[in-house]
């Protein structure tokens, strides 16, 4: 079976005004199958947002290939891009700016159906009502404006709009990062329900490892434009193979004082280098506690270790968890 999303050697460089280009994404490969949710995690500037923008053609790839439901995104003309966007929809981070403040939420949710000529008039109103119900809102909300809703409700509206076209692929870019904890749980529950009720593939982009673990089947970790580890959820969280993945997991503060204080403290030293001047060899070597001379010279190749794919010269030397 063909994957819903296939990203192959994706490269996105942004030209800088002065100096070398910013290498936002530098050779990223993964696929997402039907009904599967892939988490894409990493810190700010690692390129995870650029990957999702490239998938729907909001930024142009410099190299590599992206296929959504078999259609190549790179070099797609306007018509094809519009087709692709019918298959792949996005939920953004900030619900406050994801909705046009001068448009009723009914019009916002119905817009994909209306502009594509899929529904109008009474039928459109009914489809909008059904979508509102599906995300836990009421049909009579359709005539209200975004400012009349709370943050969590707005994110529900954004999800309803993304579902309007019954997409094959849903991209969620930090969908719960702007929400308070109590509201975040509501949206995560909704998301898990939707995973079960829709046969969609999902790419879930987030910096929050606990959230990613909660909703994803497989997880890809990015650092400085590179994919450094890709593994099924349980493998990644129980036996992380890449030193960066381990450091990231160690750095997440667990909301449990006993657990958190018992954790070994191995904070990463230093700062993330500039993506305009990434280090030679393995991009992580400047902060890696395990780095050896070899790491500074040679970019590590992709290797399979059990179910995990990892790019690290010393991946086998994983310390026992």
């Amino acid at each position: 079976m063909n994957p819903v999303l296939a990203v192959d050697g994706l490269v996105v460089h942004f030209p800088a005004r002065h100096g070398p280009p910013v290498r936002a994404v530098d050779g990223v490969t993964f696929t997402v199958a039907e009904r599967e949710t892939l988490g894409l995690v990493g810190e700010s500037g690692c390129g995870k947002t650029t990957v999702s923008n490239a998938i729907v053609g909001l930024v142009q790839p410099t190299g590599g290939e992206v296929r959504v439901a078999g259609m190549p995104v790179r070099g797609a003309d306007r018509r094809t891009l519009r087709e692709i966007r019918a298959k792949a929809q996005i939920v953004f981070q900030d619900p406050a700016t994801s909705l046009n403040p001068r448009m009723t939420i009914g019009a916002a949710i119905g817009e994909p159906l209306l502009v594509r000529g899929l529904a109008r008039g009474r039928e459109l109103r009914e489809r909008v009502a059904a979508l509102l119900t599906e995300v836990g809102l009421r049909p009579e909300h359709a005539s209200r404006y975004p400012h009349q809703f709370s943050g969590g409700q707005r994110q529900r509206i954004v999800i309803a709009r993304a579902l309007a076209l019954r997409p094959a692929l849903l991209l969620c870019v930090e969908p719960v990062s702007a929400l308070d904890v109590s509201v975040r749980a509501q949206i995560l529950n909704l998301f898990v329900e939707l995973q079960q009720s829709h046969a969609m593939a999902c790419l879930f982009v987030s910096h929050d490892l606990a959230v990613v673990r909660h909703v994803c089947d497989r997880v890809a970790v990015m650092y400085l434009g590179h994919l450094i580890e890709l593994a099924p959820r349980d493998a990644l969280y129980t036996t992380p193979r890449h030193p960066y993945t381990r450091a990231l997991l160690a750095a997440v503060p667990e909301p449990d004082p006993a657990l958190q204080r018992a954790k070994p403290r191995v904070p990463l030293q230093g700062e993330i280098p500039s993506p305009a001047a990434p280090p030679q060899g393995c991009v992580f070597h400047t902060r890696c506690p395990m780095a050896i001379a070899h790491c500074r010279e040679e970019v590590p190749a992709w290797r399979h270790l059990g179910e995990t794919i990892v790019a690290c010269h010393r991946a086998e030397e994983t310390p026992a968890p």
Partner: protein
Amino acid sequence: MTGRFTPGIAAILGLLAIYVFVAVLAPWIVPHNPLRQILLLRLRPPLTYSPSAGWFLLGTDDVGRDLLSRVVDGARASLMVGALSVSVSLLSGTVFGLLAGWFRGWIAIVVMRIVDIVLSIPAILLAVLTVAVLGPSFANLILVLGLTRWPRYTRVAYAQTLQVATLPYIRAAEMAGAHAPRILLRHILPNIAGPLMVVATTEFGLMILFEAGLSFLGLGIQPPYPSWGSIMSEGQNYVASAWWMTVFPGICLFGVVLCVNLLGDWLRDRLDPRAQSR
């Protein structure tokens, strides 16, 4: 300066409504024909009564025309020029700004360079030069003011469009499959209209001042038709003996511009959340 609807802003709107009302109804409410000269009644002070011609509440000018009627008629010229020139420049300026902000690239470079060029010639001088070349007339006045002021709106529309265009809801509209015209008209324009209205309001006041200034210099509304600027220009020669010819039209001019500026400021504060909190 709070942005709430206060009695003060109500008074301003009321006063502006009176101006508009007077300007529209000018031909029917003037007590005298503003062009009729009664040479026997030259330079009479306010509250002059003539048994043959009646009351001259604001006095008469240097050729014996009723000043009140001329001032009322002048309101018409003033507000017409303001409204028409602002409409022309608002419309053209916004279109250019929207297009430049949305398509960016070379369109933006060319448009914004033209904006810089036009704005490099101070507006009064540009207007003076153009009117002088084309000859003064009402139509030329509108044309000149409209053509010299559109870059103001373009700058604002451009900056605002650039800003709004990066927002997720615009991305979402693209993802929905909306084409550029729909995105521009349904999603961007309503969200940049506020700042543009603020500019339009201040520009309206400025255009009224420009019209008066050009008419004062003899480059605007041509005699014998009255404009506040030209009445004052005539009055300047008699300022020592007939103060009313400069004082009354000046007060009217000052009053309307002040109201418009206060309105603009109120609109600005209303739109700018920064002005409210903290």
